[in-house]
C-alpha cells in the first residue's frame, strides 16, 4: 500500500531549460541503471526475502527509489520547459521530441525504451543482495557521468543528492548481506538458496 505525499524528497527548481542535458538525464528515469528499474527491482525482490530486516530494507529503499524517479521526472520536465523548435533541434533533442514531445518517457540516454531486464529478481537473497550492491554502484557511476556534463548549479544540486543516496543504499544492502550470512551455517553460504532451502539456517 502506498500513500502519495505532495512533495519531492529533495527540491528541484531549475531556471534555465537545457534539452541536451535532459536527453542524458532521462537515462536515470528509464535507463539500465535508472530509478524505475531500481524501485521495481527492490519492491519485487522483497517478497522472497527470508528475514524481516531484509523485507523492511527492500520495502523502504524501493519506496525511496520511487521518490527518486519522481525527482528525475521533475528535472527532465523542468529542463524541457518553454523550448523553441530551433532550440530543440540545436540540442539534438529532436529525436526524443518527435516520439514524446516533452512528455516524460522511460528510456535510456541512447533512446532505448525501458527494458524489464533492468529488474533482476532471482529469488535467492544472496544473489539478489549482491545484485543490489552492484546496482547501487552502477547508479552512482551513472550520476558521476551525468555530473561530468552538468554546469548548471540548479541541476548539479539535486543530482548530487541522488548520488549520495546510492552510497547510503549500498551501505544498507551490505548490512543486509551481513545480517543474512550471520544467520547461515557458514559452510553453506553458496551451496543453498536461503529462500528455498531453509535447512541452511543455523539452528537457534
Amino acid at each position, binding site marked *: 500500500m502506498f*500513500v*502519495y*505525499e*505532495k*512533495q*519531492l*524528497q*529533495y*527540491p*528541484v*527548481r*531549475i*531556471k*534555465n531549460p537545457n534539452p541536451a542535458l535532459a536527453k542524458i538525464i532521462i537515462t536515470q528515469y528509464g535507463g539500465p541503471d535508472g530509478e524505475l528499474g531500481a524501485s521495481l527491482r527492490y519492491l519485487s525482490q522483497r517478497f522472497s526475502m527470508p528475514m524481516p*530486516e531484509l523485507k*523492511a*530494507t527492500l520495502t*523502504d*529503499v524501493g519506496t*525511496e527509489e520511487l521518490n527518486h524517479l*519522481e525527482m528525475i*521526472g*521533475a528535472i527532465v*520536465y*523542468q529542463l524541457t520547459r518553454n523550448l523553441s523548435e530551433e532550440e530543440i533541434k540545436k540540442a539534438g533533442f529532436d529525436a526524443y521530441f518527435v516520439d514524446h514531445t516533452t512528455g516524460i518517457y522511460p528510456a535510456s540516454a541512447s533512446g532505448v525504451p525501458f527494458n524489464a531486464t533492468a529488474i533482476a529478481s532471482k529469488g535467492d537473497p544472496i544473489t539478489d543482495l549482491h545484485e543490489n550492491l552492484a546496482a547501487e554502484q552502477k547508479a552512482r557511476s551513472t550520476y558521476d557521468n551525468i555530473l561530468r556534463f552538468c554546469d548548471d548549479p*540548479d541541476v548539479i544540486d539535486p543530482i548530487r543528492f541522488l548520488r549520495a543516496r546510492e552510497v*547510503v*543504499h549500498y551501505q*544498507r544492502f551490505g*548490512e*543486509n548481506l551481513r*545480517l543474512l550470512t550471520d544467520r547461515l551455517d557458514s559452510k553453506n553460504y553458496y551451496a543453498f538458496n536461503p529462500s528455498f532451502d531453509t535447512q541452511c539456517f543455523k539452528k537457534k
Partner: protein
Amino acid sequence: MTEREMLLKKIGTCKFAVTDIDLFLDTHPGDKATLQKRAEYLEQLKPLVKEYEEKYGPLTKADDVNTWSWVKDPWPWDTEG
C-alpha cells in the same frame, strides 16, 4: 524562494531525516538512541506540517477535510526557477 517553498523545505528536511533513520533502523532495529532521534524529528515535523496545510493545502489526501483542495496547483514538479 517563496515563503511556501521555505516552509516546504523545512518539512522536507525533517522528513528526509526520518527516511534516512528508517533505513538505518531496518538493519539496526534494536538501536534505542536512534529510535529516540526519530521521535524527535517527528515532533519537529508536526507543527510545520500543521502550519503548511493550514496555509497552502494538504500534503496527503488523508489531511484534506473541508474542500477538495488536493487538486490545487502547484504539484511538486511545478516549481518555477
